[in-house]
């Protein structure tokens, strides 16, 4: 039905996202696509959707090669893509969203056809309900209906279950199976290995822009898939042979919870300890960090630092010595109009006048210590590359008052050099006595630097792992499979 051969993608800045990918989708079969962050999954999906053009390689649809110049082309050719972040217009009804791309004068569309189509879905929704009033699972169904309404033969689904609850996931699984049974080819992208094993007929695993595994699902086990995802990837950092010593307990949390996103969680953190949080997107790792930091107004539970309870607002947490490096540095990490020096000095309290000279010195010191590639403290963080901007956000908290450092995916989307710098810095800081919690979906990093790893899934801590005895593949199984997730979630 759809064959990709030798697809390559090199971005203008020289980054190669795909280096020759072959993939064949067959009508009536569900094809699973897996890979770690940065393996090239998203780029491949964008090429299929017509959102970006490949640098080399051909797409063969049916029996003739084709080029998608725009998303409309891809849709017209019968390839429908369902993106992870659901692009719906919240103020229009479900029906209006489904027929959003229709042309012509009359507003109304072919209501009977759409109604019949929606009725075949496992989890039908009222057509006239506003999307904003629908639960997230029903919204996912709307996007599926949107894709089907265009009469697609090939359906690409990018992590359709990442943000769904258990019964909503099962509805999506049923729908996927039905799509295949009706003779469509489905490409199902997911982080969850058990989902892939239970649902798909064929599996392709990407790593560093190449296909490293392609096989029938029945010939595979979760362990084999996890190994293929992790690969013999270049170890970012070697784990030191000696176990690091840790100090006395510093921070304890009791019953931290956030409705619908994090089940009650207790944890203890020691001086000089690096506690890893392993989990996929939506597993509750960010929610746990935000709950500790007091940044989540809906969260409950208590945090005790050095015997004293910490208030449940971020400014109180900062005053107590807790620091958070948030997941999305662009929208949560820095103020874009302020220079590096001013951004670093933001948490500073206890003085009224700005000491420009001292701040310039502090910025210069941070630039040297963290290896930030910037001319001076006046440079704006938006002008820096991702890795350097991240170092600025971390530098903000490298002050004597900080005693607990919470890091949420500090190495996401940054190059290997900056990544190594940051991991090495984290280890040095812990050696100096700082207590660190490091949340990451790059499990190799956790194995390399953490002293103890909590594995999260669906808002629960599902396991505690010792990085000295477990490896990346083991963590992938724990965080994305290993348990019969379908029963577990339901």
């Amino acid at each position: 039905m759809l064959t990709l051969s030798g697809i390559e993608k090199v971005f203008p800045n020289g980054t190669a996202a795909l280096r020759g990918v072959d993939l064949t989708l067959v009508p009536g079969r569900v094809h699973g696509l897996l890979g770690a962050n940065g393996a090239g999954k998203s780029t491949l999906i964008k090429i299929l959707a017509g959102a970006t053009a490949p640098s080399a390689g051909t797409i063969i649809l049916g029996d003739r090669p084709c080029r998608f110049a725009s998303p409309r082309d891809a849709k017209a050719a019968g390839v429908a893509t369902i993106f992870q972040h659901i692009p719906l217009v919240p103020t229009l009804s479900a029906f209006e969203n489904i027929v959003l791309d229709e042309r012509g004068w009359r507003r109304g569309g072919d209501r009977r056809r759409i109604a019949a189509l929606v009725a075949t879905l496992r989890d039908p929704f009222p057509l006239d309900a506003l999307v904003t009033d629908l639960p997230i699972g029903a919204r996912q169904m709307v996007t599926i209906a949107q894709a089907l309404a265009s009469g697609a033969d090939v359906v690409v689904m990018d992590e359709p279950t990442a943000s769904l609850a258990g019964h909503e996931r099962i509805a999506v699984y049923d729908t996927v199976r039905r799509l295949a049974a009706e003779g469509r080819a489905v490409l199902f992208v997911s982080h969850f290995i058990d989902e892939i094993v239970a649902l798909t007929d064929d599996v392709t695993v990407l790593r560093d822009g190449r296909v490293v595994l392609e096989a029938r699902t029945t010939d595979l086990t979760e362990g084999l898939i996890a190994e293929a995802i992790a690969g013999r990837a270049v170890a970012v950092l070697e784990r030191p042979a000696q176990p690091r010593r840790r100090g006395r307990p510093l921070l304890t949390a009791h019953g931290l919870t956030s409705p619908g996103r994090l089940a009650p969680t207790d944890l203890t953190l020691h001086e000089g300890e690096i506690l890893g949080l392993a989990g996929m997107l939506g597993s509750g790792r960010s929610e746990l960090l935000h709950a500790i930091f007091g940044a989540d107004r809906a969260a409950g539970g208590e945090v005790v630092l050095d015997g004293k309870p910490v208030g449940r607002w971020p400014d109180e947490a900062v005053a107590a010595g807790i620091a958070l490096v948030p997941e999305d540095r662009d929208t949560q990490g820095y103020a874009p109009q302020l220079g590096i020096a001013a951004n670093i000095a933001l948490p500073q309290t206890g003085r009224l006048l700005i000491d420009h000279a001292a701040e310039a010195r502090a910025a210069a010191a941070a630039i040297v210590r963290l290896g930030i590639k910037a001319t001076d403290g006046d440079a704006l963080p938006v002008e820096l590359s991702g890795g350097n901007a991240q170092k600025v956000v971390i530098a903000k908290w490298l002050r004597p008052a900080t005693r607990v450092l919470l890091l949420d995916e500090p190495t996401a989307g940054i190059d290997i050099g900056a990544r190594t710098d940051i991991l090495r810095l984290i280890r040095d800081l812990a050696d100096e006595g700082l207590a660190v919690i490091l949340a990451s979906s790059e499990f190799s990093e956790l194995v390399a630097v953490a002293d103890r790893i909590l594995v999260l899934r669906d808002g629960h801590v599902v396991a505690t792992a010792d990085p000295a005895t477990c490896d990346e593949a083991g963590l992938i199984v724990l965080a994305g499979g290993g348990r019969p997730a379908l029963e577990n979630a339901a």
Partner: protein
Amino acid sequence: MTDRQRIFGLRAAGVYYALLLLLVTLAAIAASRGLPAYLSAQNLGNIAYQASLVGIMGVAMTVMLITGAFDLSVASVAALAAAVLVGLAGRIGFAPAIVAALCTAATVGLVNGVIVQFVGINAFIVTLGTLTAVRGLVLILTDGRSLMVEDPVVLQQMLAFESTRVPLFWPLLAVAALLLAGGVAKRRTPAIMAGGIVAALAFLGGRGASVAAPVVYLALFTAAVGFMLRFTVIGRRLYAVGGNAEAARLSGINVHAYRLGAFVLSSVAAGFAGVLFGCRLGAINPTALQGTELTVIAAAILGGTSLFGGAGSVVKTVVGALLLFTLTNGFNILNLGANYQGLIEGIVVVAAAAIYTVGGQRRRAFTRVDTAPAEATA
């Protein structure tokens, strides 16, 4: 972007050029028609006097816009403060009446801020509501008629507060000397140039020049707020709250407190402008200052303040207010046909916004290319 462009570029210094160009043009027209010299100390002082109320409100509005919020209610609050002052001055004395007027204004600001921050309604809508409601309150208080101060002693105090003329020569020279010394010591070109301009103004005006008190109040208020924004931690946090509220919150900044503070400052400044307005006439008409809020916002926009928060300068806002009132003053003095005035003012505001926006887009396009690697590897 080089240092030169950062200081002298059209985006950074455009409002100064515009004011200069306008003054030169008007002076040339005046000379060609054989009218008295346009650039006299007295006329320039007049422009500053006419711009002072809008300038004071504009400075606080700039702080407001920097935090990412908006205040449409300032003119109504000013009228309310004037009504409270005029209504109470005869009974409780001048100074207590000022305090009462400012407290009333602060209360309105607090109400605005609490509704915006804790109920979560957009500031534009909330202050559009208080714009109308507070004007209604003025009508209730005055019963729809003009109020005036009867007591001649109090009236004398009020006039003295508003129209005392302050000699300018020596204070201006002192300010110029401070700016020059500071600029040379820290090697800051803008400070040196500002010092030169102030000194030139002092000599242009001569030793006998003086201005009305509101101009001095405006200068002091601008200096204080400008200093706060530029040199204090509070100022930086205001910029951070407007530039990226989430990053500010996750840096341990109490975003609610800073936003509330901006609302209260805006209303208190409006209240003070109202006090000056009430003192000017010793009376208040319930429809006074109607529509002034738009002039205030226009001044801030002319000064390059971003409506999306995180950027703005109070000095440029004051220059923006001067620009608007120079236009008005020029049309009146040179008799250029008052009918054209509104059209020209509107074009000036839109043209200024266009310059800032186009410049901003070019800059953003440049940074987008820069951040592409992060997206590519994600």
